[in-house]
Structure formats: C-alpha cells, structure tokens
C-alpha cells in the first residue's frame, strides 16, 4: 500500500510539475469570413496566452494551423510574432465555399499548446460594401441633379450663368495675339488624360482653337503626355474643321516634349522666349512648375489666363497671371465658352449639388453644437457627422 501511495504521489507531483511547464492556450480564438472582400480569405483573431501576459513562461510566438475536418490533418499556415495585445491573421488561401477549421498554437521554448479547433468557417465574396451606402446615395443624388438639368437644357429651357471674368478675356487675348501677329500658347497641364482636369483643359482647348482658327492666328500646344498630345491633335483638328479652316491646321504645332515635369518646363520656357506668344493659356493640372511658366510668360509680355483646381498652385497663378479660373470655374469654362445646353445643364446640376452640401454643412454644425449637450435621437447622438463617414 505504501508503495501505491508513493506512486500516486509521484504521479501527482509529476503532473503538477508538468502543468507548470505547459503553456496556457491563446484565448478567445475566433475565425470569420473577411467582411468586405472579393472572397478567398478568412480572418482569425485571438488574444495572448495568459502566460505571455504574466510572463510566467516564455512565449516565443503563435502559429496558425488549418484543416478541412476538426480532427483532420492540420497544416501550418503562418508564424506570428508574440508581443501584441491582440492578434489577427488573414488566411488568404481559402477557397470560397469550403469549410475550414483552425487551431492557434502557442509556442514556447520547449512546449507548445493548441487551442480547440475553431470552425467551421467558409470564405465568401460580398456583393455590397455596406459602409459605403452614403457614398452611393451621394453619387446617385449628384448624378440625378446633373442629368435632370441636362435634359431640361436639351428640352430648350433657358439657363443663366453668371459672368466669369477670366473667360470674358479669352476672346480679347486671342484677338490681341492676332493683331500683333504672334502665336497663342496653350499648355494643357502636366497630368495625363486620365485626369479630369486634363479633360476639362482639352475641351477648353477646343473652344480656344475655334477662335484661333476664325482669327487666323497660330496656336502652339506643347504637351507633357503622349495621350494628351494625341487627344489635343484630334480636338484641334476638329475645331479647325468646324471653323471652316482645315487647311490652317498644323499637326506639328501640337507637340510632345517630355513626360518629365521640369524637362517639360525647360522646353516650354524655351518656346516662350523664342516664339514670343502674345497670349498664354495654362489650363489643367499643374504642380510646382506653375510659377516658372507664369513668370517666364509675364517676362515676354503675354496676356496670361490660367485655370486649375490644384489648390496648392492657385496662389501662384493668381499672383502672376492676368486672369485665373479658380477650382470649379475650370470645369464651368467649357460650358461658358460654348453655351452648349448639355454643358450648361450639368453646371446648373452642380449648383444644386452645392445647395444640398450647404444645407448639410449648416445643419451639421447645428447638430454638432447640440450634440455637445448630449442630445440624442433613438439613443444615438444627433450629430450628422456619422452620415459622412466613409470607410
């Protein structure tokens, strides 16, 4: 009997000793389909093993294991370094619709312990990004305004647009260049054709080219992007056709220099000081080169009209050019110059967009004020800002 007790005691002692060396498992392990994605991925989360937190035993790291059956043959997917307050791993090699089970293994110097299997989980693609509902509403609303007023304009409704000084001056500038027998220079920005400011710029170029063709002046268009050059060639050619002067169109005048920002400026500066244009237009996306162009243009005595929606460059155009189209005015320009109903209509649509935005800003700051006092509606703060959070 004595020896039996001894054996039991020994076993108990061994068990206690062994327990002291066993690592406690990671806590709260969970697996779920990655919420907003195209499928093929599952997110795992867990919290540190208590041994990591109280440092009773050394935890070197964690491992993520995966199998298709709870008791199946698990394969290691990843090693995760220890030292965080919570852990996350995304299994990006899951097949959609297949059930998976996961285990998190906590790894120490000599020991390791697994969690119970977590699962089953399936990966699936999602069809709508719920956090972006507000963006969808905004997009639909703005589009509706624009399309409604375009249809109104097409139906023959008279639409009014206020005077924009910079655009009144376009004709005057082209006229002056003609009188002086000097060319007109048009720089459509340094961005590529996928930038909407560039599109606005080449559209305005079309209007300017028509005037130039009618006045029989010479038009120079240096481009920093091949696609912009190609597009500008098409547009100017059409403008000359429209003005009934296809013979006066010279493809060589719309030329490519280089994609390089400052290489382009060096080239345009050279064109300016040698060809001495009497009217310079800078429309589209500009960066630091804006002031180099505008100051060189001023030194040769040209009338200068600029337009950009780049807030960082507007100060320099304002300072160095005769007229500057600010931000949205650049997009209003083609409508203003052409008076085409479809363009005018969309401008009125934009104005309604502004009315809605102003309404939300004013309503928003009022609710922000009230929210300070803890006003609530249906248990939520009344502040409107939650409506405008996009993830």
């Amino acid at each position, binding site marked *: 009997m004595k020896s039996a007790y001894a054996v039991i005691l020994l076993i108990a002692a061994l068990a206690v000793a062994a327990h002291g060396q066993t690592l406690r498992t990671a806590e709260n392990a969970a697996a779920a389909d990655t919420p*907003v*994605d*195209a*499928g093929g991925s599952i997110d795992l989360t867990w919290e540190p093993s208590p041994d990591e937190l109280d440092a009773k035993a050394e935890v070197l790291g964690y491992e993520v294991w995966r199998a298709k059956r709870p008791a199946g043959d698990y394969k290691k997917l990843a090693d995760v370094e220890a030292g965080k307050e919570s852990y996350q791993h995304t299994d990006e090699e899951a097949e959609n619709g297949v059930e998976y089970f996961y285990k998190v293994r906590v790894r120490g110097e000599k020991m390791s312990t697994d969690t119970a299997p977590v699962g089953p989980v399936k990966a699936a*693609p*999602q*069809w*709508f*990004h719920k956090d*972006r509902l507000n*963006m*969808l509403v905004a*997009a639909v609303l*703005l*589009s509706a305004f*624009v*399309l409604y007023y375009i249809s109104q304009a097409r139906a023959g409704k008279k639409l009014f647009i206020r005077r924009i000084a910079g655009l009144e001056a376009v004709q005057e500038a082209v006229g002056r260049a003609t009188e002086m027998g000097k060319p007109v220079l048009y720089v459509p920005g340094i961005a*590529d054709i996928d930038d909407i*400011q560039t*599109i606005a710029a080449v*559209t305005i170029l*079309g209007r300017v080219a028509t005037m130039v063709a009618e006045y029989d002046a010479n038009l120079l268009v240096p*481009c920093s*992007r*091949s*696609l912009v*050059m*190609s*597009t500008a060639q*098409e*547009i100017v*050619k*059409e403008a000359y056709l429209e003005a009934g002067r296809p013979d006066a169109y010279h493809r*060589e005048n719309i*030329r*490519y220099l280089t*994609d390089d920002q400052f*290489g382009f400026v*060096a080239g345009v500066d050279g064109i300016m000081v040698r060809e001495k244009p009497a009217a310079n237009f800078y429309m589209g996306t500009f960066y*630091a080169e804006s*002031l*180099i162009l505008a*100051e060189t243009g*001023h030194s040769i005595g040209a009338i200068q009209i600029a337009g950009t*929606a780049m*807030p960082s460059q507007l100060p320099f155009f*304002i300072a*160095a050019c005769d007229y500057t189209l*600010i*931000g*949205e005015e*650049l*997009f209003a320009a083609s409508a203003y110059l052409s008076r085409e109903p*479809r363009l005018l209509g*969309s*401008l009125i*649509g934009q104005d309604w*967009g*502004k009315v809605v*935005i102003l309404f939300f800003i004013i309503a928003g700051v009022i609710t922000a004020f009230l929210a300070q006092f803890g006003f609530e509606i249906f248990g939520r703060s009344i502040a409107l800002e939650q409506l405008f959070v996009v993830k």
Partner: protein
Amino acid sequence: MRREIPMIVAFVAGVIIILEFFVPSLRSVASQVQNWYLVVVAFAILVGAFNLLRMNYMKVRDRRADWPYSIILIVGLFTMAIAGIFWGIGQGTVFDWLFNYLMFPMSSTMFALLAFFVASAAYRAFRARAVDATLLLVAAIIVMLGQVPIGSIWIPEWWPHSLVFLTPDWLKDRIMEIFNTAGQRAILIGASLGVVSTSLRILLGIERSYLGEE
C-alpha cells in the same frame, strides 16, 4: 462606328472602377483593368517620343534655326533610352550615372528657379490696390515672417502671454489653420462637383469632344 465603340469602351472601363468601390467582389477585375492602363501609357510614350524625334529630325534636315541643338536632344534621348532598356536602371548602371549627373542637377536647378520667381511675382502682384490684393499681401507677409526666426526676434522675453496673438508665429498658425483650411476646403468641394459631373458626362457619352471629329 469610329466614335461609338470607343465610347462603349470608355463606359465599361469607368463603370467597372466605380462599381468596384461598392462591390468588393470586383476587386481583382478592377485591379486587372487598372494595370491595362499602365500598358497603354507605356505604348503611348513611344508615340510621343516619335513625335519629338520627328520634329527635331526635320529641324536638322531643313537646317532651321537652332538645328544643332536638336542633334543634342536626339543624342540625349537615344543614349538615355538605350542605356536604360539594355543595361538596366538600377544603382550603379550607366543610366543611374546619367540620371545623377545630368538629369538630377538640371531638374533640381529648374525647380530652384522658383526661389527667384516667388520674389519677382510677389514684388509685382502684392500691391495694395484693392481689398482683395491687400488681404493677399498681408496674409503672405505674416506667414512669411512667422516661418523664420527673424520674424519673432523683436519680441522680448517678457512678452506677456495674453498678447501672444500679436506675434507672427501665432498669427501664422491661426491663418494656416483657419483661413487657409476654409479657402482650400471650399475649392476642393467645388472642384469635386465639377469632376463628378464631367466624369459622368464622359461615361454616358454626353461629353465626347476628346474623341475628335466624327
């Protein structure tokens, strides 16, 4: 048909990108399509380079003004392109050397010209002719003073904290935080409406001037 099919191409490309924002499952399709654009740009640059070479070749051929410089341009272009394509663009290559000792100094000097042009533009433009111009120039001067130590050098150690709002440092920070933010924000919002409506017109084929003649 020369305009209709390209319009459909534009519509499909744009709509995929817009939908991808709302429909997560389109992500891989959209990123594929976006990569295609990079290929188009890479081909397009050949068109530009050809245009540049042709213009300069004609200048040399016809012995037009400044034609010898055009030879420099042509040699420069071929040297850089050939060195880069055949011997790589990594560190220690000929391309890298040409970039460091030719292109970089010219590029940064061109950029540095701005130091002179901000001065000449300010001299001309910042004259108190009307309210607008006065606001422009006062704001500019305060911010310029607030930026450098010399702007606050006249302020003695015992300057009371209650009068801190008279120092250029303090004023600069408030102007940037309040007025600059307000102005820029209005421009951003306004321009975004212009961009959204222009994009919409392009996608729906209402705006098609970029496609040229019928």
